[in-house]
């Protein structure tokens, strides 16, 4: 027993905050510091849609597009995680080094998730400033949008982590990224109200959890009118989908390969 303690020198100094910081450093701070062009790339997708929608609608959908960009930023952050995780696991084998270290899967994913949030923080700050300038949001609307963004973030990082652990190659990962991107960002009416989608195509949009998130955010900001029953149904669907994703993620994720 004494011998075992002597070899297990790491026990005493296991620090979860250090382990989270490690992920933030390798996945956000160092890339931003050493390769800032990646930061611009991260900002392009949500802002390009925002601009297109604003121009096409002659400015009438600016508010909806800002909210859409906020929601999509968190979804994009979660989706970007999949590529980073796959790169760390399959290309440079950093994840192998982490798996055989005192860092647990949950601490790793929290750190990686936070790193993506930090990466996308400039987007969120700029969009929040635009929202303050161009929109008149109530405290309830701000809270609703924040909660919706958080749920979508949890959903997308769980999905990303699960998919990344199942892939063995970055090319496989790209295939999943495209599928997830279609599900979470192309189908749902994030930058415009769902009523802009003609029937029966609208039903397709309801396949994506982002649709419910967007509806709740747009309703809270006063851009669309939803009945209390619809609002409740949207919340229930969004929360249930996120919880189911978490459960599937926990069960299907492979930290230690079988």
């Amino acid at each position, binding site marked *: 027993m004494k*011998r*075992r303690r002597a*070899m297990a020198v*790491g026990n005493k100094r296991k620090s979860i905050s250090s382990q989270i910081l490690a992920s933030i*450093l390798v996945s956000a701070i160092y890339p931003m510091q050493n390769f800032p062009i990646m930061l611009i790339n991260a900002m392009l997708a949500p802002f390009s849609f925002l601009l297109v929608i604003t121009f096409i609608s002659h400015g009438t959908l600016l508010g909806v597009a800002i909210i859409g960009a906020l929601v999509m930023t968190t979804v994009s952050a979660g989706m970007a995680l999949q590529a980073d995780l796959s790169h760390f696991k399959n290309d440079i084998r950093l994840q192998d080094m982490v798996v055989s270290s005192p860092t647990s899967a949950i601490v790793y994913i929290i750190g990686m998730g936070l790193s993506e949030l930090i990466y996308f923080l400039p987007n969120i700050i700029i969009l929040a400033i635009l929202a303050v300038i161009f929109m008149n949001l109530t405290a309830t609307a701000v809270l609703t949008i924040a909660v919706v963004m958080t749920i979508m973030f949890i959903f997308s990082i769980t999905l990303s982590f699960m998919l990344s652990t199942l892939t063995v190659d970055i090319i496989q990962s790209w295939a999943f990224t495209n599928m997830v991107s279609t599900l979470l960002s192309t189908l749902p009416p994030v930058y415009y109200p769902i009523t802009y989608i003609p029937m029966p195509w609208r039903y397709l949009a309801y396949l994506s959890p982002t649709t419910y998130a967007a509806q709740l955010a747009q309703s809270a900001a006063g851009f669309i009118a939803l009945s209390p029953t619809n609002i409740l149904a949207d919340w229930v669907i969004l929360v249930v989908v996120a919880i189911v994703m978490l459960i599937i993620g926990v069960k299907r994720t492979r930290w*230690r*390969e079988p």
Partner: protein
Amino acid sequence: MGRLVCDKVTKVYGKGATALDKVSFNVPASGIFALIGRNGAGKTTLVRILTTELMLSSGKATIDGVDVTNDPSTIRDMVAIVPQEARLLMWTTPKQFILAYLLYRGYGYKEAVERAAEAVKRVKIEKFADKQSQHLSGGTKRKALVAAVIAAEAKILFLDEPTTGLDPISRGELWAMLNQLKKDHFIFLTTHYLEEAERLADMIGIIEDGKLLAIGTLDNLRKKVKHEYSVRILQKGINVRLREGEVVTGLDGHRQILTTEREANRISQGLIKRGIRFSSSPISLEEIFYYLTKKSIDIADEEKEGNGGWQ
């Protein structure tokens, strides 16, 4: 220091491919243990099982009495690994990478910074410590990876083919580093460079097609081959009368005689008299490996039976 014990460790992958087949050994967890084998022999699979990255299908493995399957968190405090294809992140410097790895190991930021600075000095890459890895040579990157696991203070280091792709000088520097490290670490090294195992390892295991063929010190392995000496004839078409031993053809096409020291001396004297170029030495790990795996050796039984006068 304890022992590394594998008891009938078997790994069958999803599609029924057996990567490890009842691998059993019991070695002291000290010095350098080198596991040698060809590509796909099962080396990496065993390393991944022992470092808790991969579950075994059956059998049991323990390090210092700690069960790898049932107590992975204790094992993870004890071990650190440089995986076979590990690379530095393109946008990090060696110092940044080592710092991040130490944070993953649970060190506080300040201590991790100090340790990272010491680690780059220890592996003599301080000149490159703050350069982004995309501007570094393969050798420097590899040393940075090794520096990270050294700095972690894990007592058991798994280095999966650490010198693959390195130039001879970088390889030599890494060998020197490992020779220093083995004084206070147990190093589990996999390699397909037999010279590397011969030079570094205290114990050597030979694995082929998921089966452990032999394990022991180099001297032990020599005994398993039953031949102590090798005489390599460097000219073609030379006939030698052999009293004991075996004639084989190495990968380079040269005829080799595996035999006793006395017989090797006798044959050597004969070859010298005839002015034939040859080399004679104690049997090398390479020869032991070829002999045991029987993949690259053409045992010339037919010739011993009278074709060409080799008897």
